[in-house]
């Protein structure tokens, strides 16, 4: 079963501590070594992106930033045997933030990929 993990958070007032980046790399390394992490990458702020909307048979292209209060930060694609296993990896990831970036708030959405 494949799961897409989408991390989103409000724009933080402080930059992420460098140790967090290190810890995330380490966890990613473990998940890769366990054969479950297929792909992951960080995302630039939506100011660098755009939306393409279809409404009333009309295509509208709008440059970022998006108006949502939260920004998508990163994605990861996991191949695991159960939803609980996916949740466990997501929890470990979020736990690093709790430990290393006090006060930070965010959400990882865990979505199952269809047909997997």
């Amino acid at each position, binding site marked *: 079963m494949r799961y897409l993990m989408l991390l989103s958070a409000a724009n933080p007032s402080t930059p992420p501590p460098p140790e967090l980046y290190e810890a995330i790399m380490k966890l990613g390394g473990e998940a890769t070594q366990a*054969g479950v992490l297929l792909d992951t990458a960080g995302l630039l702020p939506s100011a660098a992106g755009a939306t393409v909307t279809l409404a009333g048979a009309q295509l509208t292209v709008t440059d970022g930033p998006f108006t949502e209060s939260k920004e998508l930060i990163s994605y990861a694609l996991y*191949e695991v045997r159960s939803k609980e296993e996916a949740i466990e990896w997501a929890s470990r990831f979020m736990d690093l933030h709790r430990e290393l970036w006090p006060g930070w708030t965010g959400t990882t959405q865990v979505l199952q990929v269809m*047909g997997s």
Partner: protein
Amino acid sequence: MADPTSPSHRATRSAIEAVWRIESPRLIAALARITGDIGAAEELAQDTLVIALEQWPVQGVPDGPGAWLMATAKHRAVDLVRRRARYERKLQEVGRDMESRQETYGEPDADALDDHIGDDLLRLIFTACHPVLSAEARTALTLRLIGGLTTHEIGRAFLVPEPTIAQRIVRAKRTIAGKKIPFEIPAPGELAGRLASVLGVIYLIFNEGYAATSGNDWIRPELCVEALRLGRVLAGLMPDQLEVLGLTALMELQASRLPARVGPGGEPVLLTGQDRRRWDRLLIRRGLAALDRAGRLDAAPGPYAVQAEIAACHARATSVEGTDWERIVALYTVLAYLTPSPVVELNRAVAVGMAHGPAQGLEVADRLANEPALARYVQLPAVRGDLLARLGRFAEASEEFTRAAALTGNERERALFRARAEECSLG
């Protein structure tokens, strides 16, 4: 008191099982190093799981559940080793044991373990795939210890009753203990041969999923996924071994075709008939990347890397016609040189049939007609049938497909061959 049937209790239980799945291979590997005994290691790991299942629903899941499991398990392992050492000393004192095994049970160095997780896992893999075990035993033990599958899951995947699998595992552990197989990574001189056994086990698991030899399903993707995971783990542990990368690349590339390999009714769809838009692009990308890493190593490609190169030819092509069949023929010639076998030769016949036409392909296939090793091999009549049909020799083709249908143990495949036999008999 926590109610074991409550939803929150069940959720905790599922969460524990998920943690367990992630941690159990590393736990067993570390415990096997402390105790020198994979049987004891698995039991200790199971004990630890039981403790977690008892404590966590009541006391809550600890922060860092993986570390908790490891610490608890290590603690018990050290206890066991001490108990055994005491027992040995007692035995010696009463003079019943002439053969001192004191060294084996010396004071365990549990704290040194954390630096050796990767090595321990490798040791576990090499031990589970030891040539002293039968192929079936290696497969079952590998899936159990490194894959973290239950005997029930292994039995279901291989269509074998659960007690049979449990028996195989018990016997395999007994063999390892009885023959005093050391828990270690093979010495450089032995490494190539022992690694071949490990790769063979992983590919066997993959193939049983990719083209099930028996049963009602043509493919069993969960076995492919399991083998892929094992391959990825091994590739992480031995990134400089060309054949490890070769096998991983091969499995990623072959697995990329799984979504297109079955039709809507569960029927097999062969490579030439597959809708390539359904191929998994991510797996193709990963497979090509692994192959690229393999190509940059200073070593000669072995059979897995060559097969991965063949799979890559298909992965890169957008159609059957657009496939570089010449290169595939050349790669099969290399493969036949590396591992001479009638099966490889038969595959070369298929490639020759695509590159130079069915008559030439048939010429290669016909040379295998009296090959004893292929006497009951399903693909020989299947390939001949296909080449004959393309030459318009339908009556002969129909006979070949009928023979293939009789030989296969897979129901889906049988239906496919019967349909082709029927089709050919109509001309």
